[in-house]
């Protein structure tokens, strides 16, 4: 009797476990069933970052959704705005792409991260689709390379690129007695202008350079690398194929950060460490003339367009743009970095074919022009770049497009995101006065050696 009873209970508990195991099994099997019917009507999930008050992408995707659903009866497009700041967006996206249950069908990937996510096996190569796509020839060659991995396959369709430079407020410059047509030649020129502003216009933040962990990649790229690539050093030595450590340029760049945050030429470190700093600069500090110089991207005027978060038609007369100079004016004399975003399909997407159709809709000439214009992108399609509407879309378009001739791309290898995290950690340590630039640079060197291996590093010039 008792043995029977035991058996029954054992069976019951085994069943219980089996049931949970089953339910897991059955859910993981769904994608197989889903992908087989992908040619027909499908439910496509598209994920992008929604942070701060900006609505350009939201409105653009809403338009594309309507267009796609009308063209493909029965299909539905679900827009998944991932509400998260810079670093959190990537984390959430990566977690979603890990499981077929949560993987979106189309994702918006930053080019700096795409190699890392390709190495992780999150993304699907698009070559089969691209080879049959008549529009691919319209893309510029550099743009085609943006999402090409070391294996030679292409994993993303770029929707634009960007360049970076100094934005400055001409009215504030005039008040401070600085030239309205400002052409700084060295870092010292930039610093002395900032010092003049601080002295003449109390209450105005002289200069913003993104810095520290909360702003994530914006700190590393708009902030630090715009400085570093103006020195004689770089992050990565292309000839030796090694990461650079112990370089003077790295320390000098950190010193620049120390100078502006230490002398009060920048926002208070506390303000700068607000994760909303990016949208604050675009929607408050610049439009309210509370910030004189901003080292920022080509796209920030999208905030001030009619469709933007803070319409400000006067921006094109109030603000000027000038190239960021190199440290001592040597080299090409000016520096810019380029990045950009791509549309990609996760490897675990349930409807890759339908997802590709959606990407094609996102990238029709009409839609690409609309996004390049509203989103203040630098066009990557030749037909968009030639479009009169795009060319005249903003007074700054020509300036930033011309910077393409000096622009540099990040060493977007799989290790880059980790290295970038070490850069922003070093920046934050310096801007808050926690470490000296030398000590922060030393910590960075050690961390990079740990990330890529000591044999893959080389010392600077």
């Amino acid at each position, binding site marked *: 009797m008792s043995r029977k009873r035991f058996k029954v209970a054992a069976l019951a508990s085994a069943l219980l476990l089996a049931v949970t195991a089953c339910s897991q099994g059955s859910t993981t099997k769904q994608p197989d069933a889903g992908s087989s019917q992908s040619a027909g009507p499908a439910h496509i999930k598209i994920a992008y970052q929604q942070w701060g008050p900006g609505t350009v992408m939201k409105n653009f995707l809403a338009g594309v959704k309507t267009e796609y659903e009308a063209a493909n009866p029965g299909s539905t497009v679900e827009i998944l705005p991932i509400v998260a700041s810079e670093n959190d967006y990537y984390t959430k996206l990566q977690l979603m792409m890990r499981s077929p249950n949560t993987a979106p069908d189309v994702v918006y990937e930053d080019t700096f*991260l795409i190699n890392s996510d390709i190495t992780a096996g999150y993304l699907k190569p698009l070559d089969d689709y691209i080879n049959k796509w008549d529009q691919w020839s319209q893309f510029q060659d550099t743009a085609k390379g943006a999402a090409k991995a070391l294996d030679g396959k292409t994993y993303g369709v770029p929707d634009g690129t960007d360049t970076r430079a100094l934005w400055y407020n001409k009215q504030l410059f005039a008040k401070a007695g600085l030239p309205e047509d400002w052409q700084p030649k060295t870092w010292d020129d930039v610093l002395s202008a900032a010092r003049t502003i601080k002295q003449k216009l109390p209450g105005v933040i002289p200069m913003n350079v993104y810095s520290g962990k909360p702003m994530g990649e914006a700190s590393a790229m708009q902030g630090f690398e715009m400085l570093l690539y103006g020195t004689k050093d770089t992050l990565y030595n292309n000839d030796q194929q090694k990461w650079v450590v112990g370089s003077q340029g790295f320390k000098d760049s950190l010193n620049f950060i120390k100078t502006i945050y230490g002398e009060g030429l920048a926002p208070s470190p506390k303000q700068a460490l607000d994760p909303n700093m990016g949208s604050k600069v675009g929607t408050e500090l610049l439009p309210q003339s509370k910030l004189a110089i901003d080292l920022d991207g080509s796209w920030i005027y999208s905030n001030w367009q009619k469709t933007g978060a803070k319409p400000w038609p006067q921006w094109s007369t109030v603000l000027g743009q000038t190239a960021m100079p190199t440290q001592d004016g040597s080299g090409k004399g000016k520096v810019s970095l380029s990045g950009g975003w791509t549309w990609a399909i996760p490897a675990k997407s349930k409807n890759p074919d339908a997802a590709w159709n959606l990407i094609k809709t996102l990238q029709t000439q009409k839609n690409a022009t609309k996004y390049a214009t509203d989103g203040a992108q630098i066009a990557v399609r030749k037909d968009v770049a030639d479009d009169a509407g795009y060319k005249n879309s903003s007074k700054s378009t020509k300036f930033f497009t011309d910077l393409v001739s000096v622009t540099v791309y990040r060493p977007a290898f799989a290790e880059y995101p980790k290295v970038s995290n070490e850069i922003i950690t070093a920046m934050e340590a310096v801007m808050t006065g926690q470490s000296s630039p030398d000590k922060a640079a030393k910590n960075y060197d050690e961390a990079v050696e740990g990330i890529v291996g000591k044999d893959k590093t080389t010392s600077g010039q």
Partner: protein
Amino acid sequence: MTTTVAPTASTPAPSGKTSGRSGKPRAANLIRMLPLSPAIGLMLVFLAGPILYCVYAAFTNMALTGTGAANVKFVGVDNFRKAFGSGAFTNAIWLTLVFTLISAIIGQNTLGLGLALLMRKSTKLVRNFVGTAVIGAWVLPEVVAAYLLSAFFNDDGTLNVMLHAVGLPGQDWLYAAPIIAVSLANIWRGTAFSMLVYSAALSEIPKEIEESAEMDGAGGWRRLAFVTLPMITRAIMTNLMLITLQTLSVFGLIFAMTRGGPGTKSQTLPLYMYEQAFSFSQIGYGTAIALVMLAIGAVFSLIYLRGLNSEAA
């Protein structure tokens, strides 16, 4: 009579015949285990499972992106070597110890004891009022408490307004002394727990003992040191153990107040772990740090348990 009845009564009524006859202890044990088996099964799957997985992950290069995401490799003790060689990690350990010492062992513990002692002597009205206020802070959800406190410590927050009102200079607490600010916040939030534990322990002390000590001429402080405290040593040790373990793992409060910053000035181990695992995608390294945290908690527990045992002996 009673002794013979007891064994039959203790066997389960329906199966009384068989188990009583067989007398096989193993079978009887198995039957007793039966009702527990679903619970044990669930615990194994949902409690032991993740812990074992965590131990496994700590020895791998698991990551959310890059190579560690595609093929997870066993890397031995690399994660631990990296941790102990890193300045950020030692900084985090140091801050964790400071935070635990200030906010739990000194702050919550003594303040809780003090409140419990004072409330014993006070009128019912005062007791109710203080009790409600202190427990109110404890009952508040963590994020709400953290928000209130960051408003309190903010540059133009309540604390500085009060300091200025009495002519004292204020300072930007969250920026200049973040670890002190979050420690004070944790004291504010956690004192109620110690107070409740000590109130219960103090009410267990027989009145006669204290009265006789008073008759023998022992003053207030001597009574406290030689009578009251020795009688609640067990409660003190238990309380210290619980609040230490709670404080070691405080995350939400600090994250909401300072995010571990500025720089890494308030980055205790849980925040460092979160940053490495989720902001910087290094899951393997993050779980290794979690294991180190577990070890630190275990060391504290051992110390307190030894204190408990030596008291009992």
